[in-house]
C-alpha cells in the first residue's frame, strides 16, 4: 500500500485506477503519465455530442480540476513514455526523465488505424480518437456540405448519425458486407443499416477507399475500389484501432495483439500490469481463452479490480462485458459477447424500433443486444452475471418475467439437458 504505482495512460482506465487506488486506501505515491496536454476526458462523447452544436468544453473532463491535487497524485500531462526497463523498474519519458516504479500499469489504450496512403494526406481527412481530432472535425463541419465516413463501425455510424442530424449530407463506405459485422448479430446489423438509410445516411457496402481526391491540398472526394467517386469536403476515417503495445513489446513482455495479462491483470512481469483497450486478458469459457475489449466498461471495471489487487485484495476480473452506442435516435446496448452465437431469439417491437436480440451458443445465453430497450439491457446484465439458465423456448412466452428470473441464484450443477429449438424471429 506504500508502493509507488506508475500508470502510463490518462484515459478512462488510468484515471479510474487512480480513483480506485486512493479509495481502497493506497497511501503510497501515484504517478499518472498522459501523452496529451489536455485534462483527461470522456472519449465516447467525441463521436456524439461533442461534434454537435451544443458541444461545450465542460462536457469532457472526467473529474474536477483539483482531483489530482486532492488525491495527492502526480499527474504528468503531455509526457510520452518512450521506453520501459523492467529489470531496472523504470520508464523513460520523451524528455529523458526517468520515472522509477514499484508497480507499473500500462493503460495505453489503442491507436486508430489509418488509411494506407502515402503521407501527407490532403486537409479535411481526419481520424477520430482524441479530443483534438474531434475539434478539428467539428470545425470542418461548420462549412462541410458533403461528408464521407470510411468504416461502418461504432465510431463511423455514430459520426454519420451526428452529421446527418446537423443537416449535412453524409455517405458511409464500408468494406465488408454488413455494418458492425464484428460486433453484432446479422439481424441487429441489418436493422441499423435500414434505420440509418431511412434517416438519410447513404451507406455503401463492399466499398473501400482506393484514392483520396484533392485540390490545392484539400480533399474533394474519395474514389472507391469499385471505381465510383464520392464528393467530400470532409472525410472521417473510422476503420478500427489497434492496441498500443509498443512499450510492452519493446520491453520483452508477452504480447499477442494486446499486452497479455492473466485474470488478475498481471503481465508476464510480476511488477507490470495492463488494463483497458491495450490488455489481452485471460477469460475462461471464451474461444481461445482470452479477450481484448475496447469499451469504457472494460476500462473502468478492470481499473476497479486492479485497484483492489494492488491494495492487498487480489481480485480476478470477471465482469460481464457491456457496451452502448448512441447513433442518432438509435440507442443500442449490448450485454455479453455474441461471437459464435448459433441461435437468436427476438423479443419486443421491432416495428417501433424497441426490441432485443437474445443470443445463445450451445444452449447458453451469451449476449443480449438491445435497441431502445434499456430495461431489457439491465435485466440481461443480471441474467448474464448471475449465470442464469435460460431456455430459448421460454423466451417465446409473452408473459415471461425475465426480471424475476434474473434475481435467481445460479443453477445447480446437476441439470437436465435442453435441446434448443429454432426460434429466430423476423425483424
Amino acid at each position, binding site marked *: 500500500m506504500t508502493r509507488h504505482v506508475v500508470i502510463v495512460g490518462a484515459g478512462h482506465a488510468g484515471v479510474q485506477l487512480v480513483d480506485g487506488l486512493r479509495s481502497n486506501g493506497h497511501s503510497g505515491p501515484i504517478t499518472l503519465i498522459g501523452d496529451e496536454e489536455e485534462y483527461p476526458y*470522456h472519449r*465516447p*462523447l467525441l463521436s*456524439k455530442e461533442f461534434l454537435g452544436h451544443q458541444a461545450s468544453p*465542460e*462536457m469532457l*473532463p*472526467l*473529474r*474536477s*480540476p*483539483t*482531483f489530482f491535487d*486532492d488525491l495527492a497524485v502526480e499527474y504528468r500531462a503531455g509526457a510520452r513514455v518512450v521506453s520501459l526497463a523492467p529489470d531496472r523498474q523504470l520508464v523513460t519519458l520523451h524528455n529523458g526523465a526517468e520515472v522509477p516504479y514499484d508497480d507499473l500499469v500500462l493503460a495505453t489504450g489503442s491507436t486508430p488505424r489509418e488509411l494506407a496512403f502515402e503521407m501527407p494526406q490532403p486537409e479535411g481527412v481526419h481520424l477520430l480518437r482524441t479530443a483534438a481530432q474531434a475539434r478539428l472535425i467539428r470545425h470542418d463541419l461548420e462549412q462541410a456540405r458533403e461528408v464521407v465516413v470510411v468504416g461502418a463501425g461504432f465510431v463511423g455510424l455514430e459520426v454519420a448519425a451526428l452529421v446527418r442530424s446537423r443537416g449535412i449530407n453524409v455517405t458511409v463506405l464500408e468494406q465488408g458486407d454488413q455494418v458492425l459485422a464484428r460486433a453484432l448479430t446479422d439481424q441487429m446489423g441489418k436493422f441499423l443499416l435500414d434505420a440509418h438509410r431511412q434517416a438519410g445516411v447513404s451507406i455503401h457496402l463492399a466499398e473501400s477507399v482506393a484514392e483520396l481526391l484533392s485540390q490545392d491540398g484539400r480533399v474533394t472526394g474519395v474514389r472507391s475500389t469499385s471505381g465510383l467517386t464520392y464528393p467530400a469536403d470532409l472525410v472521417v476515417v473510422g476503420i478500427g484501432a489497434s492496441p498500443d503495445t509498443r512499450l510492452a513489446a519493446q520491453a520483452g513482455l508477452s504480447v499477442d495483439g494486446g499486452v497479455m495479462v492473466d485474470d488478475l491483470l498481471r503481465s508476464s512481469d510480476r511488477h507490470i500490469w495492463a488494463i483497458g483497450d491495450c490488455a489481452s486478458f485471460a477469460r475462461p469459457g471464451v474461444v481461445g481463452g482470452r479477450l481484448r475489449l475496447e469499451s*469504457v*466498461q472494460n476500462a*473502468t471495471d478492470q481499473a*476497479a479490480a486492479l485497484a483492489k489487487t494492488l491494495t492487498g485484495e487480489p481480485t480476478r476480473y470477471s465482469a460481464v462485458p457491456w457496451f*452502448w452506442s*448512441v447513433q442518432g435516435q438509435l*440507442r443500442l*446496448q449490448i450485454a455479453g459477447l455474441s461471437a459464435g452465437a448459433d441461435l437468436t431469439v427476438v423479443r419486443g417491437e421491432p416495428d417501433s424500433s424497441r426490441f432485443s436480440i437474445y443470443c445463445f451458443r450451445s444452449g447458453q445465453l451469451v449476449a443480449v443486444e438491445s435497441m*431502445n*430497450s*434499456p*430495461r431489457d439491457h*439491465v*435485466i440481461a*446484465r443480471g441474467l448474464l452475471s448471475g449465470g442464469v439458465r435460460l431456455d430459448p423456448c421460454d423466451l417465446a412466452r409473452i408473459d415471461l418475467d425475465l*426480471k424475476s428470473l434474473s434475481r435467481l441464484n445460479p443453477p445447480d450443477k446437476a441439470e437436465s439437458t435442453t435441446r434448443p429449438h429454432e426460434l429466430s424471429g423476423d425483424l
Partner: protein
Amino acid sequence: MAKIQFQHEDGSLSVVDVADGTSVMRAAIQNGVPGIVGECGGQAMCATCHIYVHVDYLDRLPPIGVDEEEMLECTAAPKDDQRSRLGCQIAISEALDGLTVDVPTRQV
C-alpha cells in the same frame, strides 16, 4: 446560476453554484463532489449518477423520460420510486435553485 446541495451519508453537505443548464451530474463532477460517477458522460446509459431528490423539489423537476426510468432499474443503490433520478437528466435552472439531493451509498 443556481445552488445545488448534495447531502452525503456521513452527514456532510456539498454546496455548489452552477450555471443554468448544467446537469446535476456534471455539477458534481466539475466540483469534485464525491459519490457521483457519471461513467457514460451524461447519456443515460450507465446509471452511475443516481441521486435521491428531496421531496420538496420533486414537482419542479423535468418529467422523467422512458429511457431514464428504465435505466433507474440498474442502480447499484436501491431505487426509491418517488425520489430516484439520474443526475445527468436534470439540468439546473433558477426554478431549481437550492435543489437538494441525497447521494447514494454506491454507484457501481
